[in-house]
């Protein structure tokens, strides 16, 4: 199929349909509204389910019901709405249910604004809801990558029996780009959902979808079972990209839209004779610690760039283990940093040497 020009939110919606999404439950919030609007028309056309819920809280619990019944299910929202969904996300992880959650991030805290942001990094990567759990979290930098990852995310969620978060910002949701929906994506080895509770029908004993473990030993065992899953994500499923790192003096660490802006910045720096590379986390959980083991000897400094006051910098410090000086540049309030701003920050770091 040839590339088609689509708006980000609509392209992500179509990617979900192509990923085999059976049902969507969601509640309107800017800047992701075109996504449910698109699905309200096209899910029905494809014989699938679309329900506009009464709240984000209801939406994520509808996701819980459909996922527990064995369906492939999606919800989408933006930062304050994701905050409301955290309770249900915790239950999904506790009951080991697969689901895909798209977060088109905007500035906060509170009602914040409606412009792009990456300030939900900690909400996404630290669990957000109650208890010991994590989400497999993917942060695409372009519409093509978002489409591919969303298509794959339904497999990933089923494989881990855990929700997958697609972390994009309002910029990706609102931009238009040509996208090819037929690019090959990895296939995961999936088992039949013998655990689903959708009626025994004479084929099996009863199934229970549950996150309640009143016996402390049972709950500890369950927590360690979940931990094994997160450890497997960390050991075998980190994703990242190293860009122009071969002779870089400075490595910019950035994800999503910010990484894409950093691509322009390193080209501008090259013109000025400064060799700069990019470490681009694609999974923000698990954080790609392995990328930092591949940093070449030429690198002297790391510069973290985010659309937040520095939420990812903690993870960079943890995996860096004191190996490099770490600098930071960020914009907040929904302001997207321009490539020149990153260039200036890099020049400032170089100038200080």
């Amino acid at each position, binding site marked *: 199929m040839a590339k088609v020009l689509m708006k980000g939110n609509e392209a992500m919606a179509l990617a979900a349909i192509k990923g085999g999404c*059976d*049902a969507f*439950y969601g509640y309107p919030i800017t800047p992701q509204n075109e996504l449910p609007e698109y699905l309200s028309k096209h899910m029905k056309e494809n014989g699938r*389910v679309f*329900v506009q*819920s*009464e*709240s984000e*809280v*209801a*939406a994520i*619990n*509808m*996701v*819980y*019901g*459909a*996922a*527990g*019944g*064995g*369906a492939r*299910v999606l919800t989408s929202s933006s930062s304050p709405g994701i905050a409301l969904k955290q*309770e*249900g996300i915790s*239950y999904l992880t506790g*009951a080991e249910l697969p689901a895909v959650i798209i977060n088109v991030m905007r500035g906060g805290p509170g009602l914040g604004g409606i412009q792009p942001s990456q300030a939900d990094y900690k909400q996404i990567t630290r669990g957000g809801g109650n208890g010991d759990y994590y989400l497999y979290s993917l942060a695409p930098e372009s519409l093509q990558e978002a489409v591919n990852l969303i298509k794959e995310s339904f497999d990933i969620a089923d494989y881990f029996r855990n929700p997958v978060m697609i972390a994009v910002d309002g910029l990706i949701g609102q931009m238009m780009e040509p996208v090819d929906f037929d690019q090959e994506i990895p296939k995961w080895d999936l088992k039949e959902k013998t655990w689903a*509770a*959708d*009626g*025994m*029908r*004479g084929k099996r004993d*009863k*199934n*229970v*979808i*549950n*996150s*309640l473990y009143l016996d402390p030993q049972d709950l500890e065992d369950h927590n360690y079972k979940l931990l094994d899953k997160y450890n497997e994500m960390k050991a075998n499923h980190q994703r990242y990209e190293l860009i122009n790192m071969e002779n870089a003096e400075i490595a910019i660490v950035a994800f999503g839209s910010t990484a894409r802006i950093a691509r322009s910045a390193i080209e501008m720096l090259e013109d000025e004779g400064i060799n700069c590379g990019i470490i681009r986390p694609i999974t923000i959980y698990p954080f790609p610690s392995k990328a930092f083991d591949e940093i070449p000897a030429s690198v002297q400094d790391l510069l973290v760039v985010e659309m937040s006051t520095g939420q990812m910098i903690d993870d960079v410090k943890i995996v860096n283990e004191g190996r490099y000086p770490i600098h930071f540049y960020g914009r907040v309030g929904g302001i997207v940093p321009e490539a020149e701003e990153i260039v200036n920050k890099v020049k400032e770091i170089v100038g200080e040497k």
Partner: protein
Amino acid sequence: MAKTKTVYKKSPGLSDFPLSYCPGCTHGIIHKLVAECLTELDVLERSVGIGSVGCSALNYDFFSFDMFQAAHGRAPAVATGLKRVRPDTMVFTYQGDGDLASIGIAEAIHAAHRGENITIVFVNNAIYGMTGGQMAPTTLVGQKTTTSPDGRDPKHSGFPLRIAEMMATIPGATYVERVSVHNPKHVNKAKKALKKAFEIQKNNQGFSLIEFISTCPVNWGMTPKDAVDWAVDNMIPYYPLGVYKDRTKEDNA
């Protein structure tokens, strides 16, 4: 040897798991009715119950078919999500008054509002049972609880919510009835109401809610007998029994 005849046996809809309810609590009777109705309608094999938070939180152990445990108040949303992707399942929620009338009122109203083809089994004992007897939205005026130690004062905490009456006003609701299980006659009436609710779902006729007047001897501080008498003397006058909505009659008219 004399011939024996089985006149009563436990419903196959119930498991052998021991019930965790206090003596005199009517949850056990209501469970039995749910199990009997689904068995008699021959739908056990395609039934899925959505449990809630409260005294009945462990009911996924007590029924013999597929169950979900849902977060406090969210059972109607969970039921919606499941029913929409698996329309050939029989889906019911089992919720207490703290769960449905307080934290989950929005989910209950909107499931009715959308006309979801599900059944809500709503158990009203006028108090929070599992958490130790706090005031519920359904606590009667003057009723003493651990958070209304001087008795519920409507000036401070409002009047008790009448859920059946309220749900009956929602256009999307098909069938709403309030019943009681305080004596065998009313247990039989309650069973008829519940069976009708499940039949409505089986026939794809939409949303039904059966409100059960129930007892909480422990948190009311009464013997089981006194609790039943108290429910009859105090709850039923404020929460009158009867059919509050029956759109199946309108549909047939």
